[in-house]
């Protein structure tokens, strides 16, 4: 599926991240609930930055403060201290800032269930200051791009969960925001619908929209995100480009699988390189130059696979959240 999404007003998209202007800047956000002994800090000193065209996966266990942070960004909760800037505007002081935000928050798809897909797009478009005519026009375009055009006159309650989710994202894009907040966009979707939503998210980001994504499906976060921020007990414990974080936690061990048997001479040579030979498999933790010497030793046995140990985001997340390791 190829989408031609409307271009987002990025104005500041450049190749070098340091040259980019941030779409979202969050500085030292704090939020507490309750009083006296019952007081607890839901968010403690959270700072984030997202640039145009970037997907930031905001991860954390239940109750870590993700939703509170997102709602402070969306202007729904007033922070005790700290600041939020969306395209340079403060959503808590300048209502214009919220015109730059599209949000699909937790809840049952954020749509009116008795209204059709197009009626929802029309209604939310008008609410966000788009004229009814333009909202219907943009709505039809979005429905076409999201492969929902044939469902434009179907009430939302008759759509599948995947279609409802796609429609919720379309509704959030009707006013062409610079920042999209997605809370659990693939929750409860089947494999196919989940893949479609992931493709959409990536294409929306490629069109220049900054995306803040929260999810408990870490494979989704790994696949979609350019950067990852992990929050625990209201504090950011890691924030790095996804690739760097995975590389940092990945080992340097190679597993080499092959067919056939090794003779004694080869076994000794392999052991001399510091590798461990098992039947049809070798485990090697050394320099990559030595790896090629090792592969030479295996000639002409057929290789089945050569795999470098690679940490996935789930392992990294668990290590960080359990406090076993620090970034």
């Amino acid at each position, binding site marked *: 599926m190829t989408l031609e999404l409307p271009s987002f007003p990025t104005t500041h998209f450049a190749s070098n991240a340091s040259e980019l202007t941030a779409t979202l800047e969050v500085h030292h956000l704090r939020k507490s609930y309750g009083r006296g002994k019952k007081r607890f800090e839901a968010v403690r000193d959270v700072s984030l930055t997202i640039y145009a065209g970037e997907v930031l996966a905001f991860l954390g266990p239940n109750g870590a403060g993700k939703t509170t942070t997102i709602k402070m960004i969306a*202007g*729904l909760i007033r922070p005790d201290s700290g600041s939020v800037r969306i395209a340079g505007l403060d959503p808590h002081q300048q209502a214009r800032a919220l015109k730059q935000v599209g949000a699909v928050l937790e809840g*049952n798809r*954020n749509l*009116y269930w008795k209204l059709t897909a197009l009626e929802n797009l029309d209604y939310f478009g008008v609410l966000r200051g788009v004229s*009814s005519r333009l909202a219907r026009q943009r709505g039809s375009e979005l429905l076409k791009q999201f492969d929902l055009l044939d469902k434009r006159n179907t009430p939302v309650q008759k759509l599948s969960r995947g279609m409802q989710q796609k429609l919720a994202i379309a509704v959030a894009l009707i006013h062409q925001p610079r920042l999209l907040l997605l809370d659990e966009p693939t929750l409860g979707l089947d494999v196919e619908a989940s893949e479609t939503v992931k493709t959409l998210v990536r294409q929306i980001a490629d069109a220049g929209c900054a995306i803040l994504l929260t999810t408990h499906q870490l494979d989704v976060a790994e696949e979609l995100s350019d950067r990852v921020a992990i929050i625990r007990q209201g504090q950011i414990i890691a924030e790095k480009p996804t690739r760097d974080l995975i590389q940092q936690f990945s080992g340097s061990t190679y597993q080499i699988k092959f067919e056939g048997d090794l003779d004694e001479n080869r076994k000794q040579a392999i052991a001399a390189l510091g590798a461990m030979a098992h039947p049809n498999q070798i485990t090697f933790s050394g320099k990559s130059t030595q790896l090629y010497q090792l592969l030479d030793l295996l000639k002409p046995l057929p290789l089945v696979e050569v795999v470098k140990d690679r940490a996935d985001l789930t392992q990294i997340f668990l290590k960080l959240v359990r406090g076993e390791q620090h970034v």
Partner: protein
Amino acid sequence: MFELLMGELKRTWIQFIRYPAEVIAGLFIITTVFYGLFLSAQYMAGPAVGFGDRLDAVVIGYVAWTLILYIVNDIAIGLQLEAQTGTLEQVFCLRLEHLRFLSPEPSPVWRCA
């Protein structure tokens, strides 16, 4: 502002009229309940008791009371329903500049973990 009002009226009307059978059934049920109430009251009072003009007052008073209760409940139920479906947050996310006089506090407070 006018477009906003029209948008809101349009949504409310569409939601009301979407399933005509639901509307007709609702009207039928309310009419039946009221008619049953009057018949029961008349039956219990007996044929000797004449309400005279007071019957009209009783009927109008009861209908008005029921409608007020319905309206008050409907606001609460509507808010609850919209909070569950997530549309309430979407509406609060807008915080329209020309309606700011309605809410002196810039942001409503939502409690969540």
